């Protein structure tokens, strides 16, 4: 209820200030621009009681005073960046002035969006990093500032790139590494650092090969270690489909890779054709002839 009252009051004051701009006087004295959170004072002239309002985005401050006094505002009292109206009532018409509050220069927080969190190796411009730079009061710092982006993996030199913020935002695009692994993606502005994890995963399997041998009246089939075209091991859990086609029927098994290989057993049928595939990648075929 109080908040509602304050907003109505603020609205009225802004409207009044706009209406009175033409009759603005110079009895109010204060810097026209300040940094968010810095202390400052407003001096007045004349005599008699008055009320000083400072109305801005998300903030309304009211002070009762005697004309001729100087009103001080402490550290952090005005903390939201934006355009403020300063209104001194008690005389007719009210005196108005304007105040600009800018974000502090020192970065204090970063909102860092790193996308995607998981991508295949060797993708050009596959990783995107976007950093929003804020001051201690969570005001977006609009003045250009340098943000450095580092993509690093254990045992390898980091890929570094620096970008300047435009309207508080800096961004880069980076290639994913040719080797699979966990990379740390870091954004730094001033003394502030934010880290994200980017998982670089193997691409499509490059060569799928299997071998088969007899095993107790059945056929044991096993793939070679499955690698992508960059030599990265395809992750365990990847499904490999074995299919055995024989006269009048077939057998299929979907097997997950474990320790790099997929293996299973199939019923032994002379003349059976055994094929293997994973996703949309086909492997070799084996014709099973008399236990070979």
């Amino acid at each position, binding site marked *: 209820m109080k908040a509602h009252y304050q907003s109505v009051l603020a609205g009225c004051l802004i409207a009044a200030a706009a209406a009175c701009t033409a009759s603005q006087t110079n009895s109010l004295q204060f810097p026209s621009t300040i940094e968010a959170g810095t202390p400052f004072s407003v001096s007045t002239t004349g005599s008699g009681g008055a009320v000083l309002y400072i109305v801005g985005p998300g903030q309304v401050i009211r002070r009762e005073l005697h004309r001729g006094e100087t009103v001080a505002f402490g550290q952090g009292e005005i903390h939201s960046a934006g355009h403020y109206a300063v209104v001194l009532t008690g005389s007719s018409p009210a005196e108005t002035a304007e105040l600009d509050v800018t974000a502090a220069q020192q970065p204090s927080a970063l*909102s860092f969006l790193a996308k995607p969190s998981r991508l295949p190796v060797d993708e050009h411009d596959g990783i995107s990093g976007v950093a929003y730079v804020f001051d201690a009061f969570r005001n977006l710092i609009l003045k250009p500032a340098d943000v450095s982006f580092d993509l690093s993996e254990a045992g390898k030199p980091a890929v570094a790139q620096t970008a300047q913020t435009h309207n508080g935002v800096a961004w880069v695009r980076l290639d994913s590494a040719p080797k699979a692994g966990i990379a740390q993606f870091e954004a730094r502005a001033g003394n502030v650092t934010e880290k994200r994890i980017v998982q670089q995963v193997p691409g499509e399997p490059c060569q799928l090969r299997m071998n088969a041998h007899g095993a107790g009246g059945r056929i044991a089939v096993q793939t070679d270690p499955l690698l992508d075209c960059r030599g990265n091991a395809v992750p365990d*859990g990847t*499904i490999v489909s074995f299919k055995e086609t024989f006269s009048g029927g077939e*057998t299929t098994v979907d097997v997950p890779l*474990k320790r790099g290989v997929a293996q*299973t057993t199939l019923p032994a049928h002379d003349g059976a054709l055994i094929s293997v595939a994973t996703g*949309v990648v086909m492997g070799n075929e084996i014709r099973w002839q008399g236990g070979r």
Partner: protein
Amino acid sequence: MTGGRILAFFIGAATFVAVALGALFPIPSAVVSAGSGTSLLRPPSSPQVAVETLVDQIRRRDWDAAYQSLSNRGEFTEEQFVRDLTGAYSSLRSYAALDGFDFTPLHASADAAEMRVSLRWSTVVGTFQDVRNLRLTRTGDQWHVAWPIVLEPRVPPQVIPVNYLRWDVIYRGPEDDWGAQDVESPHVRIVDMHPVDRGGGVTLLGELLNEDVVPAFVSVKATLLARDGKAIATEDAFDEISHVLLPKQVTPFRIDFPGVRLAAVDSVRMNPSSSLVAASADPVIAVEDQKMTGLPQPTLTGQLENQSGQVVNIAHVLATLYDNNGQIVWVTDQYANRALLPGTPLPFAIGIPADIASRVSRYRVVTSSYTASRFQ
């Protein structure tokens, strides 16, 4: 007005008469279905009455009475009889209710008879039929059923070493900054999709591939659009899909739009969705000896073999049927009603619509499995 009242009177009177007749002279299977089986507790003076009484006892799960009425109860225990009907391990059968039955006399003489009884069990995923050939013999003036017991295999106590592979997921928390990244949803792709006009409606058939390196919980929603761009209907693949896909796994899907004409459809908007899910790479189920029999009752048969060490309580079998151009002509499924035990083959048979069977050139069968403690 008067004519309407007369008509209403006659409809009301006819309904009353029909209800009264049904209550006074019910057909036996209706009595069983209605649950007032007490009227069937009569001496089994004929093969038909003996079968009806036994089925009623099974429906009421009056196992003791059912077992005691059998002529061959010396061949198995009551516990084995109950396991035959409800499953030795927790399975779809354990939670099924006998919904109805039909029987066909196969042979009859003065002292012996044979009947084929088809028990219709209802479950949360549909119905399944349990067909048994019953032999009946007359002792004095009473008929008794010899139950064709199916002894479910028991897995002997043992330790089966398995290298389990499992994924767990940590999602972002509510206290994280808005810029904090969340784990990426798995990337999935529809690799095939086309609509067919069938059964007075439109059916979408297709396949979905998990092209990521993590498991995905997937679903596919589709919207049929008319020429003016307006949506005609929206449906999703409910259980005609395998919802959990491991990396590089492909599932078929079928989405039915009953009552929609294909001619009215201009385009289809597909919306596959995926989310990360904690999953296990096991159990591995082989689908062995797949065969398709032709008319008059086209059926895809085979055996499921659980190659892992854990009991699969419910196995879902999905079959994709292709024509000789490699285009999908139908997707159909079946749930196994018995638990799938390690190393123990379990047969399945999926009926294929007769008009489609003639176009089938090849097929692909996949399974998904559910265990009592989790699903995969």
